[in-house]
């Protein structure tokens, strides 16, 4: 079988957000593979380690730097990568068309995709790709196992956690809590340098975006930051309660 893991390179969550030219400035900033995608790469590796005879292909659409995220996935253990290189900002519906075309060409059986990407906060890629392929989908997976061609697991729904089963092919979205992603070892980082990253041009996929970014604003609320020393717990507690009652007026 073949597992496709869709990944995206995003601003490291620890970095502060800066704005330039009416968009979030990524020049010279630390970019990483989206953490939610790491759980997908890890889960693909675990499915294989648990007996699935699978080739694991990681796929990303993005500018030249996106290659770093693909390299990181290869260092974790993925077999090869496909990089659709473009500086254009695709909307998620257009992106899903690229992903579905690649899935068809690769004859994929399972697609794993992060539940939400930490740059555009979209949750739509997995669902839109599944629809284009006419495959079922399960979002926000928190446990996953493969028995033959049947996936079983748990996922988060609106009103609680559901247990599910679904027959391949399928798209699943991954998240924190699904597993603990491994760190690449030095030998695996060296090996990854020799693995194939196929480069495609976006033009080959003939997609067009209909949603465009018009501008961004960073809104951070100024906080009071009145921090007390708690060595004398009753005194600190009394001061805090007084502040919350009389100054902030948020408690009775």
């Amino acid at each position, binding site marked *: 079988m073949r597992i496709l893991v869709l990944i995206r390179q995003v601003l490291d*969550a*620890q970095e502060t*957000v800066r*704005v330039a030219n009416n968009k*979030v400035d990524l020049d010279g900033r630390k970019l990483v593979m989206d953490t939610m995608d790491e759980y997908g790469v890890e889960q693909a590796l675990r499915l294989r380690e648990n007996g699935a005879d699978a080739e694991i292909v990681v796929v990303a659409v993005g500018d030249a730097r996106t290659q770093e995220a693909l390299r990181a996935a290869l260092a974790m253990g993925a077999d090869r990568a496909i990089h659709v290189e473009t500086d254009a900002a695709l*909307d*998620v*519906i257009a992106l*899903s068309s690229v992903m579905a075309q690649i899935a068809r060409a690769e004859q994929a059986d399972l697609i794993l995709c992060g539940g939400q990407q*930490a*740059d555009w*906060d*979209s949750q*739509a890629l997995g*669902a*839109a790709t599944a*629809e284009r392929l006419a495959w*079922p*989908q399960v*979002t*926000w997976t928190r446990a996953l196992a493969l028995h033959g061609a049947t996936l079983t697991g748990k996922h988060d*729904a*609106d*009103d*609680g956690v*559901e*247990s*599910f*089963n*679904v027959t391949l092919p399928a798209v699943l979205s991954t998240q*924190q*809590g699904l597993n603990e992603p491994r760190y690449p070892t030095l030998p695996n980082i060296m090996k990854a340098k020799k693995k194939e990253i196929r480069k495609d041009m976006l033009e080959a996929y003939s997609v067009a975006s*209909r*949603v*465009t*970014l*018009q*501008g*961004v*604003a*960073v*809104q951070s*609320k100024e*906080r009071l*930051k*009145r*921090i*007390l*020393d*708690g060595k004398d*717990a*009753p005194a*600190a*507690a*009394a001061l805090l*309660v007084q502040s*919350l009652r009389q100054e*902030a007026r*948020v*408690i009775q």
Partner: protein
Amino acid sequence: MILLVVPHVDGKIAKAAYELAAAARNIGRTGPVTALVLGSAVAAVAAEAARIADQVLIADRPELAQFDPELWSSAVAQIAQEGEAHTILIAASRDGRAYSPRVAVKLEASLLEDVLSVRDCDGALVAERLSFLNRVTETVAARGAVVVVSVKPGAFDAATPASEAAEQFDVDLQLPPRRVTITGKEKEDTSRIALAEADVVVAGGRGVGSPEGFTQLILGLADQLGAAVGATRAVVDAGWRPYSEQVGQTGKTVQPKAYIAVGISGAVQHVSGMGKSGCIVAINSDPNAPIFHVADYGIVGDVRQIVPALIAELRK
């Protein structure tokens, strides 16, 4: 027409339905507002929906008793096509965000996700939404004859229901077979005050030490304040608390008047779920914990000393 898919929970119309109605009224596009009710035994929901729309379409089918993204997207796309809807409004709940992309693909429509505002501007739909883990507000414009919009819960003030009820019609739909089988469900505990509706939230992280510590400190303080209980991902993953209490990127987003974070370091993923709270209070033993950067008030100290002292002070 504007098609509005009516969200409902346990046989009752959800608050988000009235918010969608407000979005529809303010969107600046013409055509009747049609409410679509999908589910099983949903007559009561339809009766309420009739007060927020110009007409109500009802697909009351046993197959629709349990949510499924393929069934929902298929139903919505059929109705949208037959009624030539130009705008489709869906609540941006977890489920709503799981099927709205499928609707967009079926209809070759544009998709606007989790919007805070949405308005027609020279034929394009312009919306504001949050990005970069809720740290950035971006303005986006969607072109195209049909746009699917998921609307962030709480972003719009609920529309007031009309006194007269609109007409209701049963609709016939071709539904695809269900391919994902749900074999079990761990329902959320609803005995406590709901996180999304609480004025005060008391939340605990790994810093409370143990499940017993969580019960004693977090539940103790929450009970004293009449507050809802929240937890970090780490606490939920450790099995100390149910998923329903999780606040953050992969859990719930809350915006109470006061958010009291106890033993929570303040990872970006957690802050993205509570950073818009009115007043943030942090109690943590580590003075360098990032939570103090977003706090209005804080105490650096041992939570096992501070929280009992707070409870005692509140009892006075």
